[in-house]
């Protein structure tokens, strides 16, 4: 595929998605909004997790801060949605800078656990904040405009994906990849590792906060448990890893495919959906640990052996 062809294909796909509200059912749009937001979150995680190699469980904090920034601005200060969204992004970036600098010094599991613990701390702090409605949450004004929410979500996803496309072809992105592959070697080759990691964390924060703000206004009610939901972070990771971490479209495809599966399951087999979802995660990690992107690249060559080879390669 030539670059030009890829470009045309991308624009066509974006246009097609953008026109969806004019012929799809409200349920599909509803599903679309939630999937686009999840894809945005996965793309955000891709920047810090996929490119930089830091398994962040802090992205749901960004989502929560975006939600609460928007909600507090709109409910407590009667500001317009746009201002709220910016306020949420601002909160999130400040959080990324303040927390990122000490926490990004930790590596591997320790970073993961630190961010995991921080999300518990954030939930607990917000539960005690008067301005955030404590643990009883905030009720946002009702806006009957799913088309608007859909287009907004799509725009943010496009922005996130274009940013990731730029990252994958830029000096900045190569710096991140170098950090992921070997942080000491990256530093010794002149990569400002601290700055790059914090920037990646903040950038992930921007997109997650945008998604959070849109989600809050759309769902109209937020409370600490749903806004700082850790399982949302796990979903971002699963979607990214399923699609292919460190690739441009992997997280988006991962989000679309897994949301589709999960939504179908919730409707079709209702109570067993979660069980099945757990099984899918386990199976995916065992049989295709490098994601769909890798599967598609190598499946043609190896065929069904692809799965058994993965197992052989990673088992003890």
């Amino acid at each position, binding site marked *: 595929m030539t670059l030009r062809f890829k470009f045309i294909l991308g624009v066509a796909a974006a246009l097609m998605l953008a026109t969806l509200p004019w012929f799809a059912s409200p349920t599909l749009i509803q599903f679309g909004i939630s999937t686009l937001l999840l894809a945005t979150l996965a793309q955000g995680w891709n920047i810090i997790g996929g490119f930089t190699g830091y398994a962040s469980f802090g992205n749901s904090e960004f989502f929560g801060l975006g939600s609460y920034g928007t909600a507090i601005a709109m409910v407590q200060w009667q500001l317009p949605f746009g201002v709220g969204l910016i306020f949420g992004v601002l909160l999130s970036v400040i959080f990324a800078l303040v927390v990122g600098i000490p926490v990004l010094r*930790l590596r591997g*599991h320790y970073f993961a656990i630190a961010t995991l*613990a921080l999300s518990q*701390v954030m939930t607990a702090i917000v539960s005690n904040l008067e301005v955030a409605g404590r643990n009883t949450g905030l009720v946002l004004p009702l806006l009957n405009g799913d088309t608007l929410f859909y287009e907004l979500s799509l725009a943010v996803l496009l922005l996130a994906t274009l940013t990731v496309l730029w990252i994958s072809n830029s000096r900045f992105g190569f710096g991140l990849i170098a950090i992921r592959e070997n942080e000491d070697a990256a530093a010794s080759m002149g990569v400002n590792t601290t700055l790059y990691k914090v920037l990646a964390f903040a950038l992930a924060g921007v997109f997650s906060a945008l998604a959070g703000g849109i989600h809050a206004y759309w769902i109209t009610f937020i409370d600490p448990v749903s806004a700082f939901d850790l399982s949302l972070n*796990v979903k971002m990771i*699963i979607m990214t*890893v399923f699609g292919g971490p460190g690739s441009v479209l992997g997280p988006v495809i991962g989000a679309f495919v897994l949301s589709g599966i999960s939504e179908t399951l919730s409707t079709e087999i209702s109570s067993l959906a979660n*069980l099945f979802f*757990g099984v899918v995660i386990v199976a995916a990690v065992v049989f295709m640990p490098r994601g769909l992107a890798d599967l598609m690249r190598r499946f043609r060559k190896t065929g069904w052996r692809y799965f058994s080879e993965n197992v052989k390669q990673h088992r003890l």
Partner: protein
Amino acid sequence: MEQALVVSTMQLLSQILVNGVLLGGLYALMALGLALVWGVLNIVNLAHGALIMLGAYVGYYLFTLLNIDPFLALPLSMAVLFCVGYLLQRGILNLIARAAMFNTLLITFGIDVVLTQLAQIFFSADFRTINPSYAGSNFMVFGVTLPLVRVLAFVVALALTIALWLFLLHTRLGRAIRATAQNLGAARLYGVEPKAIYALTFGLGAALAGGAGDLYGVVSQINPYIGATLTAKSFAIAIIGGLESPLGVVVGGIFLGVVESLTALYIGPTFVDIASFGILVLVLIFRPNGLLGATT
């Protein structure tokens, strides 16, 4: 009047400290298995809480169906969970033993979901308790009320910790496990297959979770969804105590128990999580080897 107030404040404080220490003992037992598996296999087991939950149900069914006292059921509960852990490692985790770190997080999360859902299907979402006749008994020492089962649970937790410590230090298998923590191949020097060590260690971690679950059921209620909070608590304790020695975990557990109790008393019960997880983050940043661990 004023003196009476001072006396009652002191009494409350000592009661709270005792509560914290006793709670800490149970916490420590919950975290022990997690720390062992993490330290030796480098697996952060997000399904640890689910294993504790299973252990609690084993204890519950042994008590209600066969009328076995929960403290006598402890070894049985541990044995059952040992098998569960051993099979999980052999059947699933072993398949990704050499994959990237994300993957172990993801797969244990997946296992957690599956175990929880299966528990809901087989045990139902009803709230259960292991409620032997003596469950609420207590005795007074210097004006402080000591709940019998919590004291017993504390003693059992300490005993299991010491047993684990002795096992790791003084048996060939234990030394092989410790060596594996440093170097995968090292187990061979002790004439043990690394594969076997992995499964044994995970089984041991699960057995400790099973024991903790059995005791948890005696002091608290159980349902299929208690796992997530227990996993989070176990993390905090393992990190605060450090992964190097079982004794560190006990110190971490008691420290956390006391901090939580004091926070609830002086700041407010809704601030408990801020305190415990805030400390976890600070420990990670400033003393990554745990409160007792060596500084670098």
